C-alpha cells in the first residue's frame, strides 16, 4: 500500500531540470565557468615553461628556435589569451581567499582586506623576483 502511494507520488511530482546552457543564465555563472576554463590555460603555461626549460638545457640553437616558434602569430595569440586568463584566474582566486581563511591574531580576526593585500603583496614580490632573474641578474 505504502509502496503504491509512493509510486503514485513520484509519478505526480515534476522533477527538476537543468538546462545545458545554465551557465549563460547569469553573469556570475558565466564568470564561474570562465574561471574553471582558465585552468586549461594555467596548464598550458606549465607545459610552455617546461618546453622553455628543455630548450635552454639543449643549448643556444634550440633556445633560439624556441624563441622563433614563440614569436609566430598563433603561439603569440595563444599566450596573450593565456596571460589574460591567468590574470583572471589569479584575481578571482585571491578574491576568494578572505572567505576561506580565518586568521586570528590573539582574540581579533584579521580583516579580509588585509588577507587580500597579503596575497597581492606576495604576488608582487614573486613577480619582482622573476623580473630580477630575467632582466637584472
Amino acid at each position, binding site marked *: 500500500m505504502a509502496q503504491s502511494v509512493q509510486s503514485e507520488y513520484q509519478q505526480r*511530482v515534476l*522533477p*527538476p531540470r537543468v538546462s545545458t546552457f545554465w551557465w549563460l543564465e547569469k553573469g556570475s555563472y558565466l564568470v*564561474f565557468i570562465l574561471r574553471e576554463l582558465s585552468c586549461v590555460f594555467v596548464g598550458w603555461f606549465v607545459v610552455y615553461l617546461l618546453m622553455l626549460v628543455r630548450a635552454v638545457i639543449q643549448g643556444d640553437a634550440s633556445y633560439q628556435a624556441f624563441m622563433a616558434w614563440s614569436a609566430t602569430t598563433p603561439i603569440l595569440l595563444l599566450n596573450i589569451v593565456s596571460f589574460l586568463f591567468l590574470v583572471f584566474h589569479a584575481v578571482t582566486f585571491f578574491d576568494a581567499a578572505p*572567505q*576561506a*581563511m580565518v586568521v586570528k591574531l590573539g*582574540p581579533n580576526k584579521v580583516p579580509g582586506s588585509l588577507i587580500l593585500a597579503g596575497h597581492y603583496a606576495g604576488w608582487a614580490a614573486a613577480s619582482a623576483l622573476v623580473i630580477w632573474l630575467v632582466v637584472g641578474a
Partner: protein
Amino acid sequence: MPDRIKLQVARYRPEQESAATFDEYDIPCPKDWVVLDGLNHVKDRMDGTLAFRWSCRMGVCGSCGMMVNGEPKLTCGTFLSDYGPGPVKVEPLRNFPIIRDLIVDMGDFMRKLVAIKPWIVRKVEKPLSEGEYLQTPDELEDFKQYSMCINCMLCYAACPVYGLDPHFIGPAAIALAQRYNLDSRDEGSDERNKLLSEHEGIWGCTFVGECTKVCPKHVDPAGAIQRYKLTAAVETVKAFFMPRGGA
C-alpha cells in the same frame, strides 16, 4: 510607482497537466506589499486553488522561498514595488521536484540536514548537577554567523552544482555542520567530517559563490565550505607527516 502590477505565477496541477504553466494575475501594488502579500491576495480574492508555503511573514521561518524574476528570494522580504512596472514572475525554488504550483519537495534537503547531525554531540554528557557548558563570547563568535541559517533552501536553488548533482550535500547543510564543528561545546566533528570529506561533501563544491549572495541571513555558506576545505587539507597534510598525531 504603479498602483497595480501583473503577477505571473507558475502553476503545476498534476491531476490536470504534465508540465508547469503560468497564470497571470493583475493585483494591487501598495508600496508596503511584498510578493507574499500579492500571492495571498490572489489566493484570498482571485484563485483559491493556488498553492504555496508561508508562515511567519518576517524572514524567520524560511518557508516562503521562491524564484522571483529568476532569483531565489524570501517572498516575505521582497517588495513588489521594486519590480515596477512589472510583470513579476514567481516560480517554485529551482533544483527541487515540484509537488504543486509553488510547493517543492524538500525531503532531500531534510535528509541531508539530519545526516550532518545539526545538534551538539557529546561523547559523554556531564551530569546536570555540574551545570551548563560555559562558553566565552569569542567562542560564540566563532560559529554565530553559521547559526543564523533558517533552512530556507535559497542557497540550494542558487547552486548549479546541486542542480547538476543532487547527491551533493549542499551549502546550508555544510554551513550548519560547520556551525556545530566550530562550537566549543561540541565533540561530534569526527562523525560529521566522515560525511563532509566525501566527494558529495565539501569537495563537490566548485565555489560558484551564489549561495552566499542569495542568503537572506548572511550566513556565507560558500565561505564555510572553503574554510572547511582548508581545514581538511591541513589535517590531511598533518596526518601524512605526523601519523601519530605528533606524539
